[in-house]
């Protein structure tokens, strides 16, 4: 069976999404178990794949039994395998955590909600596993469409934010499609490995450069890289909690993965090395992204919005690291990608828990929250330490690699931006915890429901089904940090191309 793991990884969630949808019309009670089952199988497959790739080296899978480049081919090396495993685990844990919040907020629409949730994961996993440039576009659209719907479901101005996301997302995806079209017209192939081989003689051509720019810019729009980030803060801060803690950690990170895959496996370092002018401009853009994201975050008075701007800043880390142009920078980018999945998941899940309990995430709502929700706040603090970059949490190690890469490339701007944003993160979270630790519990907390006249605050934590996953995520931060050495050695080093420019 293990030779079919690549197919199971993506088709098990797809099949379970369909079954969830059928169940939502006939037996709504079965929706959650079916969704968990589908994601569970995918998680098993992803973990098994990672183990196999580590033991045996890269695996291919011919869908429909057709050889590449005629059919669609999955190609898994340690890079996709580890990203797929991270995506699958986070999606599964988040679903386990989210069902209480979904029940509370979307009682009559649970079935469609679970359907779209599992479909979004299907799209993300497919994007990570596929080795076909066009197949990637289709899967990208699946996860985007589900994202628009899940975000648009939120209250207030969420539909408008979601529609803006849809416009920008469509522009991004269309640019990617057009870039693939440019590649197809000059090479005649859609398979990534085949493209890498066919593009070699064409590196001087303007069409290839344009294709590369189109693909990269399209992906930047989807990952909310700085000048085109405007959709993200609104969309993620207004999305329903469970959707935010699925999309915020995974969507942008998978897009970063796709960008790295395009840079390493389709265009190869030989090509990106010829685009030196572009390379410097991109690192400087990343510097601006990091600084601007940090400053915008400083201006927010709402936990979720603040976290959304931190995501913008983190995207700058990864793009900058990937474009620094040396092995350590690229290693740092990949390491930060994996770490950031868990970091962002931890803090967004904590925000979801807080929202579930007190129906608000503005700073005024958080007053005295350490007494009321000690465990949730502890997990948030762990996430904050990781974002700031305090050892032994994982954030420290990836920042360390990024800074070393920047020093080696002699890019002082990037070093300064990294240090500056870490400093801002300290201020951000210190301010937050000061409110939550020392200010008295807000009068009329949670809009008059909880603790409005209790002098001694009773602990009122989020339900255990949300708390346990949150604790797991917080522990994961430290575990990942401690595992940095093996991760770099066995997972990241094998995929670094020998001639990294």
């Amino acid at each position: 069976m293990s030779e079919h793991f690549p197919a199971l990884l993506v088709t098990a969630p797809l099949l379970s999404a369909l079954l969830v949808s059928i169940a939502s019309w006939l037996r709504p009670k079965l929706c959650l178990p079916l969704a968990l089952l589908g994601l569970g199988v995918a998680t098993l497959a992803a973990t098994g794949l990672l183990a196999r790739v580590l033991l045996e080296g890269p695996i291919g899978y011919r869908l429909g039994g057709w050889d590449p480049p005629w059919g669609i081919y999955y190609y898994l090396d340690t890079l996709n395998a580890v990203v797929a495993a991270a995506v699958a685990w986070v999606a599964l844990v988040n679903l386990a955590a989210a069902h209480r919040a979904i029940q509370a907020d979307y009682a009559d629409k649970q079935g469609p909600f679970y359907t779209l949730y599992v479909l979004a994961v299907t799209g993300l996993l497919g994007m990570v596993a596929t080795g076909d440039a066009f197949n990637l576009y289709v899967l990208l659209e699946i996860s985007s469409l589900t994202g628009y719907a899940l975000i648009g479901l939120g209250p207030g101005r969420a539909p408008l934010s979601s529609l803006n996301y849809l416009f920008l997302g469509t522009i991004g995806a269309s640019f990617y499609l057009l870039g693939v079209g440019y590649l197809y017209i000059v090479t005649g192939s859609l398979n990534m490995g085949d493209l890498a081989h066919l593009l070699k003689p064409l590196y001087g051509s303007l069409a290839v450069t344009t294709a590369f720019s189109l693909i990269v810019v399209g992906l930047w729009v989807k990952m909310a890289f700085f000048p085109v980030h405007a959709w993200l803060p609104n969309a993620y801060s207004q999305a329903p909690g469970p959707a935010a803690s699925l999309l915020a950690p995974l969507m942008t990170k998978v897009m970063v993965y796709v960008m790295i895959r395009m840079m390493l496996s389709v265009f190869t370092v030989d090509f990106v090395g010829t685009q030196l002018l572009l390379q410097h401009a991109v690192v400087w853009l990343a510097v601006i992204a990091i600084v601007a994201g940090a400053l915008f975050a400083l201006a927010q008075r709402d936990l979720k919005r603040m976290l959304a701007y931190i995501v913008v800043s983190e995207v700058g880390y990864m793009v900058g690291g990937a474009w620094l142009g040396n092995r350590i920078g690229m290693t740092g980018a990949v390491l930060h990608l994996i770490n950031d999945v868990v970091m962002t998941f931890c803090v967004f899940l904590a925000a979801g828990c807080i929202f579930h309990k007190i129906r608000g995430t503005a700073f005024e709502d958080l007053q005295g929250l350490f007494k009321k929700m000690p465990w949730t706040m502890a997990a948030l603090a762990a996430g904050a330490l990781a974002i700031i970059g305090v050892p032994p949490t994982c954030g420290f190690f990836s920042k360390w690699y990024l800074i070393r890469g920047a020093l080696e490339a002699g890019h002082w701007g990037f070093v300064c931006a990294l240090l500056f944003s870490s400093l801002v993160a300290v201020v951000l979270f210190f301010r937050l915890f000061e409110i939550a630790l020392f200010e008295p519990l807000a009068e009329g907390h949670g809009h008059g429901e909880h603790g409005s006249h209790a002098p001694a605050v009773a602990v009122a934590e989020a339900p255990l089904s949300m708390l346990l996953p949150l604790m797991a995520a917080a522990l994961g931060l430290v575990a990942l940090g401690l595992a940095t050495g093996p991760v770099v050695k066995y997972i990241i080093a094998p995929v670094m191309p020998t001639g990294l420019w």
Partner: protein
Amino acid sequence: MKLISLALVVLLGGLFMAATADFPDWGDPASPASLHVSPRYIEKSMEETSVPNIVTSVLADYRGYDTMFETAVVFTAGVACFLLLRRRDPRPGPKRIYRHQATGVIVEMREEPAKEPSGGVFVRIDDDWVPHDLIIMNVCRLLIPFIQLFGLYVIAHGHHSPGGGFQGGVILGASIILLALSWDLRTAMARLGETATGLMSAVGVFIYAGVGALCLALGSNFLDYRALGPLMFVDPVHARSLGIFFVELGVGLAVMATMVLIYKNLASEGLMDQGL
């Protein structure tokens, strides 16, 4: 703002146009796109899948995995529209209009009735109801069965002529939408209800993915239809042809149901009672 965006767009267009200088000429039979991957499809399609329509064989077999997700995209859009729009609360405003079928007398009810008048004597009509045109209603009623027959033909004959699941499914869906336009939404809902469309769109995609999973269960790769051969007592090449037919059926079902589902949700703003 407008000027900046205009300049940006013109600049971008200029860049794209400059890049076309490296492209092969239009219609050039020696372009890389015509020489690298596609000749295999054209020359081997008959031999390998026994399907003369190469678009169908590439769509549902060589790149069948793409098409499965394409169907899933349609399904996703249907579920997304349902999730975003559907609501169960009654239409705001107390007015409900009924028509006495025999005499054509129109009754307006201010209060919400405890029980919908039924029995075929009174029918509920739209708030902004205008008398339907007799010619349009009856011509459409006559046309719709033929449109549906044609839709089925397009699905089934996709192996030999332009067509297939998507095209046929859209034609079938359009026939139901035509009914909703020429009569009203309630009539169309009575023919094809909400639960039916919801189930059909999921079942359609499930047929596609299920055929793929069946191949997996029979020991081949996902969607490798050759594995179905022993099940149907045909050789592997014909198994591919038949496999394509099955998945096209699933596609047709899913596309039809989803088109109708999206239309109903958009036209009635999610109330499913009246609209357009």
